[in-house]
């Protein structure tokens, strides 16, 4: 897939996805800096705000 341009759900700025972007990857919006999660719509990628991080960890 060639580089893709998507709209940032927070600030409507344009977010460019590199060709090798994967589902579940976190990208940052160049305009507002928010962290976005790449999800898989029916066919194309989509963007949603990335979840907050909670600090604890398994073994």
């Amino acid at each position, binding site marked *: 897939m060639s580089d893709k341009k998507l709209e940032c759900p927070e600030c409507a700025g344009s977010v460019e996805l590199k060709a090798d972007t*994967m589902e*579940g*990857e*976190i990208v940052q919006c160049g305009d507002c800096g928010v962290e976005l*999660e790449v999800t898989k719509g029916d066919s194309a990628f989509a963007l949603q705000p*990335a*979840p907050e*991080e*909670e*600090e*604890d*960890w*398994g*073994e």
Partner: protein
Amino acid sequence: MLVVKIGGGTGIDYDLIADDVSRLVRAGNKIVVVHGGSALTNEVSEKLGHPPEFLTSVSGYTSRRTDKRTLEIFEMVYCGQVNKGVVERFQQRGVNAVGLSGIDGRLWEGPRKSVIKVIRNGRKMVVRDDFTGKVEKVNTGLLVSLLEQGYLPVLTPPAISYEGEAINVDGDRAAAMTAAALSAETLVILSNVPGLLEKFPDESSLIRKIPADEIEQFMDVAKDRMKKKVMGAMEALADGVGKVIFADGRVENPLTRALEGEGTVIGG
């Protein structure tokens, strides 16, 4: 009351530990044992064609990628081979051990982290089907009833989420929560290092004494897995445990020597 965590790393000598703990139990000490099994889990995962994957959180912690299949292998090793191996050793030494996981009787309960953010092959990723979490509640009623009937509880991850799912939890911090919940005087963490080392892996750089209120400063001295042990110690001390001792699980009479101050004694 004394809680002893036995590390899962290579080099740990279960027979020496069982000898020592059995002596202390027969001498009337109330003891709860907690153990791990990480080294063995890696081996078995490889052989069963589901090689282990370790994730690094955005803030630098590593933990085992725990999807459903990993959890089954985790249970086979921790709850099967290691737990029953430890229980059998105590039975052979005349101590009536009872092996339980955190799922049994909802012994260790807590939230499952349904979403985690990790660095995976250099990419920042969101992982959703991971079964990890932490222990928030300890079923002390079950433990106290077993102790009063003269049994030696031998506990192992996994724990159980509030939704009733098995979750991978850090054994050291589960031991810390157990020690706090039981108001234990002492939590001893035995592993394959002499204690907290100033300059890992130089074993002569052993830090012998740390006042309880200074432990936080040692977070960055602690490398990787030891970081979680230090976090466990902090939580235990904060929740009322008298002192926490990191000591060497590869030597003879490891617990007796730890209680005599051999290792890193924090608080107390």
